[in-house]
């Protein structure tokens, strides 16, 4: 397991591993991969069946946001947002000007 792969996975998952810890992280990762690689020795093929029971899904129902959440709940949700502006969630620009 190379440190490059750790960097690549970090890029995919938006995570950075501290440079000092990268070696230990990489070694641990390698041990774990070696352990899960045991499954490659199993040659049995089996159909994956649905779980024990059959789910009964309800019909989709459209509920307008105003009816779904009370004013208090909406306020609580907004209070948790790191940045808002004019009643909207604020995010950074995806494209640079």
């Amino acid at each position, binding site marked *: 397991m190379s440190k490059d792969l750790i960097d690549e996975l970090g890029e995919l998952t938006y*995570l950075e591993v501290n440079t000092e810890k990268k070696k230990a992280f990489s070694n641990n*990762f390698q041990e774990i991969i070696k*352990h899960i690689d045991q499954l*490659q020795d199993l040659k049995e093929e089996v159909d994956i069946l649905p779980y024990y029971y059959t789910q009964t899904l309800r019909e989709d129902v459209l509920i307008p946001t105003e009816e779904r959440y009370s004013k208090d*709940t909406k306020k609580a949700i907004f209070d948790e947002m790191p940045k808002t502006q004019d009643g909207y969630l604020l995010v950074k620009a995806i494209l640079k000007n």
Partner: protein
Amino acid sequence: MKEFEFSIETINQMYNSGDLKPSEVIETVISNIDSKDEEVKAYLSVFKEEMQKKATELDAKQKKGEKLTKLEGIPMSVKDAILIKGHKATSSAKILENYTATYDATVINRLRESGIIFTGKTNLDEFAMGSSTENSAFQKTTNPHDKTKVPGGSSGGSAASVAAKMAVVSIGSDTGGSIRQPASFCGITGLKPTYGRVSRSGLMAMASSLDQVGPFANSALDCAYILDAMEGQDDLDATSVSIPASQKINFEYIKDKDIAGMKIGISKEMLPDDISPEIKEVMDQIIEFYKSKGVIFEDIELPYTKYGIPTYYILMPAEVSSNLSRFDGIRYGLSKFDESDTLQEMYQKSRTQGFGEESKRRIMLGAYVLSSGYYDAYYTKAKQVQQLIRNDFKKAYQKVDAILCPTSPHTAFGLGEKIDDPLSMYLEDMFTIPANIAGITAISVPVQVKNSLPIGFQLMGNHFEENIVLKLSHSYQSQK
């Protein structure tokens, strides 16, 4: 302060005979928290005023001569991965350090309706990832039986709170053993219900196809009371199931101590010859106890359960990497908005500073096993082995009512002993993971051993056969 046994039945009887008041129970719990939690560190937050207010209301009800129902006035702690509206819900993660829940989990609604008094939120391994509660971003919980040892994990705070009498009961979540292993280490009873029996709405998702909420208590009977109050179908969780009448909690059946003729299976995979001598001795005693009650033991084979850990460490991180992608610093939680120029930079800074090392490891492992070129070799393969493990159990339950094995390969290990060796930590769950992979129920029952830390044995039952494992556990606990 009045003495009483920390049991739902006893407390309820004393309430209804007028020998004990809800406020007296709450004051005892608060006093225990004040005197013990500085060292145990089970709680992240304590709801002192709420507890006292609710207890006063119940005192008034009792004074009017009204009977209190089974769970009214019973103090319960709650793992901090379960949402209680208006209270902090951190999952012991820095990224959620200041997050306040905006709604109640379904289990919280149901337990509140039953009259439970919530005592506070308990510590866990960050996002329930760990087997020692050392991965918490905030504090390390210690084992109430020996403060140099871990309480187990991930629901270590919940288990420790019950073991140290800082709550009568607790609820946690079990994805690979996170209820049963800490119950075993702390000397209490912990039940993982069948997948689908209890709603997951309001439980922070770790691995959604494996997560299940369940109770901790001082007895199997108390676990039955809690499960009875919180189980059942929920419109907010499409994987929750309407339980057939024949499989609902049946107290008459559980309390009937006649277990003669019941069949328990033992397999060499789940009770290997090379297990530690102290665990082996305890397991032999348990087998002798059940044999003396007329239980029949059968040898069974579970050949694929030995692949439980590698299977779990593919399926679980795959789901973790997806579930934890929601933490991006935009809608809630830690945000590095002001320190970033671009959206990508904001994602990376918020997540890198908000997640601990174990969460990062599992998210990245999940991304690895799901990536193009590896998906079939890892994820598809693991799903196939999961099916083989399920087939093993299906075949076994055609012969037996329950399967007996240890909960953990040994007693509680030392604080810091395994924290730098993740694979060794993962192997802790070798006996608990198969039940999650198969979706079946399993319970850890404590055994008191002289001059030893607590040891738990595990009974695994088929899907929705909680009554069977609770009956067998209750029978054992009634004989002591």
